[in-house]
């Protein structure tokens, strides 16, 4: 069952979208994406000189008539796309409760999955440290995926890097990878994670989901004992106007560093705030990254 956000109108809008990859990947089945493989597709690609053994049915007799030379037609192979959606289900994605960060990330994952499945792509959803779905095919698989994600509750992940590596190791065929997270983790972890994905020659897109509490974690409080949702570590802190400004600067610096790394790695980044509208984010921001079209 899909969340309430997935209204009939929203789904009809999604059906107009298509997941795109910046590169051609070999698929396992016939699908809607151009395969690097040339073969028996129906789309004309180009000509080449006739070689002994070519199928005489592919000889373009019109060109022969004009040029008295034998040329055969070449055709594009259209195959499915492997889509890997990595969904950060660590505790930080659901802190504070009720803010909607986890729900936003989950809905983005479901949206991308729906689009892919409707295009007959294979979708694999991985929640490092929690679960790793099999490859899913067909539009009906979205409901099973919706149920799976509905029952999933973010929780602390002990070693995100190790779990991510495990998730990536399951990938058999390269394709598109979408990493959905708040990326509020040490830069080294982010770097390592994306490098692992890059090593698999995936077409990676990063989607950062942030809540209002990420922008001002101790809003309206002068002081507090902050508890890390992942580790449980406590930290006494007092906040005044200057420290809040300093925190904003730190957050901006961190995000800038991540953005610059991803830019250098040619990995598009889209940032979704919990206050954003999901349809708008999907149709505008994600489209802008080139992931959807």
């Amino acid at each position, binding site marked *: 069952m899909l969340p309430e956000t997935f209204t009939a109108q929203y789904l009809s809008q999604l059906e107009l979208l298509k997941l795109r990859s910046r590169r051609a990947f070999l698929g396992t089945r016939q699908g809607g994406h151009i395969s690097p493989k040339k073969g028996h597709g129906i789309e004309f690609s180009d000509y080449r000189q006739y070689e002994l053994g070519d199928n005489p049915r592919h000889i373009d007799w019109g060109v022969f008539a004009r040029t008295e030379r034998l040329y055969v037609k070449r055709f594009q192979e259209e195959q499915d796309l492997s889509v890997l959606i990595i969904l950060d289900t660590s505790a930080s994605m659901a802190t504070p409760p009720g803010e909607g960060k986890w729900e936003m990330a989950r809905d983005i994952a479901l949206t991308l999955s729906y689009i892919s499945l409707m295009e007959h792509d294979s979708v694999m959803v991985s929640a490092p440290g929690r679960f790793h779905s099999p490859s899913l095919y067909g539009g009906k698989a979205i409901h099973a995926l919706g149920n799976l994600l509905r029952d999933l509750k973010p929780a602390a992940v002990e070693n995100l890097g190790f779990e991510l590596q495990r998730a990536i190791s399951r990938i058999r065929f390269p394709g598109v990878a979408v990493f959905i997270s708040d990326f509020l983790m040490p830069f080294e972890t982010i770097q390592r994670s994306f490098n692992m994905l890059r090593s698999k020659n995936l077409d990676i897109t990063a989607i950062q989901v942030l809540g209002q509490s990420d922008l001002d974690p101790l809003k309206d*409080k002068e002081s507090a004992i902050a508890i890390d949702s992942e580790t449980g570590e406590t930290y006494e802190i*007092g906040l005044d106007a200057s420290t809040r400004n300093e925190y904003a600067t730190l957050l901006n610096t961190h995000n800038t560093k991540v953005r610059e790394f991803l830019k250098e790695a040619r990995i598009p980044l889209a940032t979704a705030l919990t206050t954003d509208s999901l349809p708008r984010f999907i149709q505008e921001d994600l489209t802008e990254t080139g992931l959807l079209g």
Partner: protein
Amino acid sequence: MISLFGSTYGMLSPWLLLALPAGFAALIYAYLKRGKGERVVVATLLLLKRLKKTASARKDFLPPPRFYFELLLIALLALGASGPVQEASGRKIALLIDNSFSMNSRPDPDRPSTLFSEGMSAARHFIETEEPSSLFAVYYTSPALSGSGFESASEALKRLPGIKAVPAPDNLESALSKLALESGAELIAVVTDRKPAASAAKDEERFKFLTFAPPATNQRNAFLSGIVLSRESLGRGDFSVKIIPGYSGEKTVDATLELGAIYKPGEDWQRIASKNLKLGESSSEAVIFNSVPPGALAFLATLKTSLPDVLPEDNFAWVGQSPRGEKIALVSELGPGELGLTQIPSVEFMHIPPSKLPEYESLGEAYLSRPDTPSSLIFHRYLPDRLPIRNTLFILPQGGESQGSGLFELFPSAQSPQITRWDVSHPINSYLNYPALTLKVLRPFKPLPWLHELLNTSYGCALAAGEKNGVRYVVTGFELLPYEGKSSPLTSVLTLNALKWISDFALNSGYSAPFSAFPAREGQQVNLVSSGTSPAISRHSLKEAQGFSQTGLYRIDEGSSSKFTAINYFENSESELSRKQPVALPAGRATADRILNRKPLTPFLAQAVLALLVLDLLVTAILGRRKHAL
């Protein structure tokens, strides 16, 4: 107790100051606890731990400004709870003002200020220069000792303008004695023109005679000490005016005594006679003006001297008379002839049988105020239901058991009562030798409170007289009639004395101030038409007149009729200024505690706390709005 800025401060409950360190400790603990703050789960401490600066509450105890504000509130509340007071000690002082007649004298005859005004200035200065925390009870001596309770200096000063000099004696000795024993004052300050007796002059601890303008070095005062308008006999003969002049001073002085008369209401005085006199100390020889005009409504005697007079107010005397002749109504079963009253010359008696009395009463005041109606009444062996509004002689019914007539409580008749005592000073008892009087039958009675007992017997009151609302009444329990003249000299003289006393003639000759009730009744208009040195005032209601103590000639109007009534003041002790007796100070003294005036300061602290809290609320509201706006 500590002294600070000229005042003394203390606390009623100093132990409550322990709340201060307790409050401080609680506040510090609260702020230390507050610094830790509540536990908040955040997504990650990744960035928070990188913050270089944190609010001071997280690290060392460096409280924010609000801490000091809350500290100030706790300090103010603890101070307020301890009951701070500003203490000041002072004394209780009774201030006795002599406002008797002699205080009207002028220390300097050429200046208008009187001893009384100078004395009030001295009293004011005394109050203003005493310790601020002292309490004052202001008293005045005349006509009777009156005063307030102890109050602050400012309140006492407000009372002074309400005290006026009145024509009355000072009664200083009794006033001082009463204050010394009952007032509870530590000091009695006296404003008077009399000096303390030499023997008591050193008693400065208890009494302080305020000094003010010294009396004139030569206190010459000529005065009148009596005036009488009389006829040769009741209702017959020529009128004469007898005036008694006096003088107090070192030398003899030439004086002129003038007699004026008015014949119609509203007219000016007409001088009808004068005599030149030589007045000296102790001279009190009466001057008689014989054969004065019989038609005059009132007479004014004025004494003028060749030398300045320090107290001119006592140089005037008035006497008035009714224009009516003597006509007395007799309410009796028997007529005037049967009762021998026709033997009394120049008095007309009108017989009213008791059964006809209601007819006359129903005629109302309009009839009674006519000049031809009787001015006085005799009720012979008959009592009306209520007191008549005319001067009345009641001869009580004999026989019968005890009864209350509504007017008097009557006891059973007694045979041959013994006379026990009588009042020789009353005019009705003039020329009477009561021991020679033998009473055969007496109807004793209980006199009303305003009736003065003139003759008492072994069985009770036999004769009483009094005045109520300007009307005179005589009540006798034994038979005066029939009038037998020389055959019964005692009862005849008593009858004539009583009739003279209730006659209209005697009533309007004059009253002496101070009086307990103005001689007029409700519905009558009181007009002061002549008043010596004071300006004459116009109409006043009876209620206003009750508050008067001004000597002069009054005209009492009722409907179309008028009569003149004189108010005089004759008191030698007040007029003989050069022979003022020193004041003997009382010996007894009640304990007087020094007062401790404590002014609580808690209200001020509470107001300060309230103001700070309101300010805090306003500042919080304003800052809150700004935050939202940003």
